[in-house]
């Protein structure tokens, strides 16, 4: 084994605490059976944040419309379950593939142009899909949302229950699978080439990295995973509504990722947990105006600097 292959395999090796943490996460539905619904909700957005990390943290693509893929996955999964086949895994596969296709098409839009152009194109795609879902009400139910989605049992064995036990296991294990896949991806030569492109696209091209092809692949993969998260959400809640495409959702997931840390696989998970906890604490205190405190938090966070959030002892120093 040569040196680079060795360093790759070392980077791919999970730390001991990651096993422990995953074991803990997987046992959560047993430890907190009354909160199983909340657990699956957080897991879904953690998966969503992880998918954004692949393009934002690893490839450096600024996106304000990642909810486009989440929503596409949610509607595909819900429609597939309602009209064709209620099997969850099959539905999830369909939702993921449909979204991957959408992602591949959209990826052509983010190859050219500056941050602003990418921002506009991603935002525009999400808005278009939201308009479509709103106007095509004979398929999607329009503003009322798509109701009456009944899922079959997972693997033909586990019925979705009202307490959300099955839902929590289902989302957790899917997310674990994705996590393992992504950890292989980001430490592969492919993953390193993405980071090279993020740091300097021109130099990356000069050393022979096919920049466009890599970005298309990364964007498609991220879209597919976001679609998977959306599919999970639709399947576990049995519902899909217009807000899956909302600007709020894109902004929230961006915020989660920033709280948890970009360019780090655990970032999405940490961010989702922290964000949801913050949300429930603040909105229990002031339900209508919690976005004010969210905004204040964001502003302060950006003034202090993202990297310094987890290092309070550096706050006094000048950047």
């Amino acid at each position, binding site marked *: 084994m040569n040196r680079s292959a060795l360093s790759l395999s070392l980077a791919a090796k999970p730390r001991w605490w990651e096993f422990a943490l995953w074991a803990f996460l997987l046992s959560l539905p047993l430890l907190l059976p009354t909160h199983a619904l909340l657990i699956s909700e957080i897991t879904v957005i953690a998966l969503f944040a992880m998918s954004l990390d692949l393009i*934002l943290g690893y490839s450096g693509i*600024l996106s*304000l419309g990642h909810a486009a893929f989440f929503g596409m996955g949610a509607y595909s999964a819900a429609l597939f379950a309602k009209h064709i086949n209620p099997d969850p895994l099959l539905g999830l596969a369909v939702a993921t593939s449909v979204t991957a296709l959408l992602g591949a098409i959209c990826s*052509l*839009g983010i190859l*050219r*142009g*500056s*941050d*602003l*152009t990418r*921002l*506009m*194109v991603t*935002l*525009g*795609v999400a*808005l*278009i899909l939201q*308009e*479509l879902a709103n*106007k095509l009400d004979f398929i999607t139910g329009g503003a009322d949302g798509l109701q009456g989605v009944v899922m079959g049992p997972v693997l033909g064995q586990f019925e979705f229950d009202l307490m959300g036990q099955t839902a929590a296991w289902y989302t957790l294990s899917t997310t674990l699978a994705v996590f393992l896949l992504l950890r292989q991806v980001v430490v592969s030569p492919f993953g390193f080439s993405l980071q090279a492109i993020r740091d300097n696209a021109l130099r990356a091209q000069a050393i022979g990295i096919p920049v466009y092809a890599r970005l298309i692949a990364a964007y498609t993969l991220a879209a597919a995973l976001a679609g998977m998260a959306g599919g999970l959400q639709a399947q576990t809640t049995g519902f899909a509504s217009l807000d899956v495409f909302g*600007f709020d959702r894109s*902004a929230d997931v*961006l*915020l989660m990722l*920033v709280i948890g840390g*970009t360019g780090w696989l655990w970032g999405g998970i940490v961010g989702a947990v922290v964000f949801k906890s913050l949300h429930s604490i603040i909105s229990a205190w002031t339900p*209508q*105006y*919690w*976005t*004010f405190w*969210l*905004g*204040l*938090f*964001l*502003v302060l*966070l*950006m*003034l202090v*600097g*993202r990297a310094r959030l987890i290092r309070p002892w550096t706050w006094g120093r000048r950047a």
Partner: protein
Amino acid sequence: MLTLLFDGVAYGMLLFILSIGLAVTLGLMNFINLAHGAFAMAGGYTTVLLMQHAGLPFLLCVPLAFVFTALLGAVMEATLYRRMYNKPHLDQVLFSIGLTFMAVAGVDYFVGSTQQLVQLPEFLKGRTELWDGALGMGHYRLAIIAVCVVLTLELQLLLVRTRFGSQLRAAVDNQRVAAGLGIDVNKVFLLTFAVGSGLAGLGGALGAEVLGLDPIFPFKFMIYFLIVVAVGGTSGLTGPLLAALLLGIADVAGEYYIPKLGAFIVYSLMIVILLWRPQGLFSRGGK
């Protein structure tokens, strides 16, 4: 048909005044300010509140809205925005989204979430029909167009003829060299930001009757301002002006002829244009 065109032009001019500050911030400081709509909202609410509570006439409130928003912009620039210029775009986007969240929740808290109505003075309420009704012009929209045209000309003169204008253009072209030539770039930034915010506030005040005014205004119109800037480019006034007119006419016509697709057309058009010319329709080419 002509009426539609007229309404579209009025709408477009309004959008231009609203977004020109954003174009300047982006071109000058390379700062993606998603909170621009919040300044427009501030102008709108200044007008509405002054009219309702202080009983001032509409025509006095509009300039006051400009002054107030410009001051607000100047304070924000000096205290907050200045620190963000050198940060990555991601930080700027999140920072300005945060500001917008705060503005939206703050207005909701102090004023309430209902739509605010502007009482126009009597002489602006009428409507003139020409050529047997082929062209119907609301007087208020006519006034909007007039004000915006005057403002555009003034801005153009300010940019091209004055000392400040040349300093500004120098700073846009190359900030470091401009600073090296003894131009106080910070002061130029501050003034420009203030004027840009003030114009947004003025647009918000004028547009309160046409666009509607409620706390989610900054989010509702953020995408429109961004379209104007992204499509029009940030070099000069002509690009954003044409983009704003195009957007205004396309939106009004789309709403009228194919209401089912509404905003869909505008967004698709934007994406196609951006794919075709990523730097904007009227940019000076690669930068």
